[in-house]
């Protein structure tokens, strides 16, 4: 069963009301500035209920995601989902960051493992993994629902945060992944976000399998801004392949030499692919919403969602 923790965040409130939700994604990078992130947040705000802020994705050392998670809420008024990986923090650091996030008014945490450091931009770094992601959800449960840390030390003030986890419907074999998700749901999960999905049948099958846990699921999609990105994604993001026809359509757009026209073509291909995808999910499954990972491609949100929401 899904968690019976109160809905602290707008995201979880909306989900519990039964509204189909959309969330976005923001990626602070190796920079001391936040202008780009804030601009993206502003651009996506009309279309999404909340935005994830990624935490050193692919084991790249970027700006601490807590800061943009807070600043986006304060400056843009867009609720954030503070992603936290266990790769970079032991249980002390996790507790510290959760307390700080509470103080800063963060309402959602996405508790994830994080890619191993050998995949990142500082390959020699130690991967911490003091806890695994199930134990991290357990820590959050202890702090939020019981007001103590893992050792039973009391926390003053109360932590009011909803907890999300990630799921990989592309995992092969899938059964251990599903059992693992079930365990985390049992410990205390308010929502699940899937990895990028392209295959509608696979997505529907997965959603069907997951019905036994009655935990709200947001299906992840990744609109492709250019052929280069599509190709990179297909070649280098493990376990995810871009469908051949989609890749082919993207390749054709690339041939257009006029930059503005090319943009329009790319947008059309994305809308053609993802609009029916979203519609189908919305109409025929129990998914709670869509998580759109359109990083630096916010312009696609409006036309993409126009006909589907």
């Amino acid at each position, binding site marked *: 069963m899904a968690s019976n923790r109160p809905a602290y965040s707008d995201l979880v409130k909306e989900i519990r009301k039964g509204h189909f939700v959309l969330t976005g994604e923001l990626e602070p990078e190796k920079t001391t500035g936040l202008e780009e992130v804030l601009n993206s947040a502003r651009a996506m705000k009309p279309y999404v209920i909340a935005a994830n802020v990624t935490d050193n994705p692919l084991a790249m050392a970027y700006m601490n995601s807590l800061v943009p998670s807070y600043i986006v809420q304060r400056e843009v008024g867009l609720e954030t989902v503070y992603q936290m990986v266990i*790769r970079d923090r032991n*249980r002390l650091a996790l507790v510290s960051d959760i307390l700080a996030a509470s103080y800063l008014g963060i309402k959602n945490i996405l508790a994830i*493992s994080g*890619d*191993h450091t*050998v*995949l990142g931009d500082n390959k020699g770094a130690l*991967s911490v*993994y*003091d*806890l*695994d*992601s*199930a*134990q991290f959800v*357990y*820590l959050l449960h202890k702090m939020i629902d019981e007001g103590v840390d*893992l050792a039973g030390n009391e926390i003053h003030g109360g932590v009011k945060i909803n907890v999300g986890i*990630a*799921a*990989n419907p592309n*995992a*092969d*074999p899938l*059964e*251990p*992944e599903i*059992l*693992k998700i*079930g*365990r985390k749901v*049992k*410990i205390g999960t308010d929502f699940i976000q899937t*990895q990028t999905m392209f295959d509608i049948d696979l997505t529907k099958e997965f959603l069907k399998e997951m019905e036994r846990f009655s935990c709200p699921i947001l299906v992840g999609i990744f609109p492709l801004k250019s052929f280069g990105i599509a190709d990179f994604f297909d070649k280098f993001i*493990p*376990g995810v392949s871009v469908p051949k026809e989609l890749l082919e359509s993207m390749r054709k757009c690339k041939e257009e030499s006029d930059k503005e026209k090319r943009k329009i073509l790319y947008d059309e291909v994305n809308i053609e692919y993802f609009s029916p995808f979203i519609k189908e999910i919305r109409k025929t499954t129990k998914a709670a919403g869509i998580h759109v990972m359109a990083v630096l491609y916010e312009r696609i949100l409006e036309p993409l969602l126009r006909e589907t929401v």
Partner: protein
Amino acid sequence: MIITKQKSEEKIKEMTEPFKKLFIVGCGTCSTSCQTGGEKEVAEMVEKLGNRVIGSAMVEEPCDLRINRRDLKPHRETLKEADAILVMSCGSGVQTVGEYTGKIVLPALDTLFIGETERIGKFYDRCKACAECILDETGGICPITRCPKSLLNGPCGGQVEGKCEVGEYKNDCIWVLIYEKLKEQDRLDLFTTFRPPRDNSKKVLTTELIF
């Protein structure tokens, strides 16, 4: 067995450079089996380092102080003269030889892991000596050692076609193997059981065993 690998020739050269009189100690146990510090390798090392080597000896178990006493006693006089001892054993052996002789010790090998031997030249990391064995719960397959994230509650999601995200998808995802093993043994309840965070203080505080 403790699996070791010989350091590169350049590294050994650089390490031994400052010393004029060297003594070489080989290991009669693990490093003999690994072919990294047995009699043959010691002889080769003597040859390589030439006339700076004033003596050499095999110690049956260089990691055992008593055996050091027994096997190095006949070499006491030569050892006294040596500027440094190049030890061809695991790190534990190097330290024990250092403790027994009181001399500067140099490791000729890199110690890799506590491993399984398929054949000489095919060794696999199997145990991190975590001080609290859980193999009863994981189908006899160690996730602490063999999952690069040492996860205790199932796969990280980074596995593709059963292969691990670390090491370019060449190695098996150990949590998939554990899942398959437990399934085969009809013990999948062990897979879904939540394993709480480990008490790492156990390992940190277990630095000696005295009884």
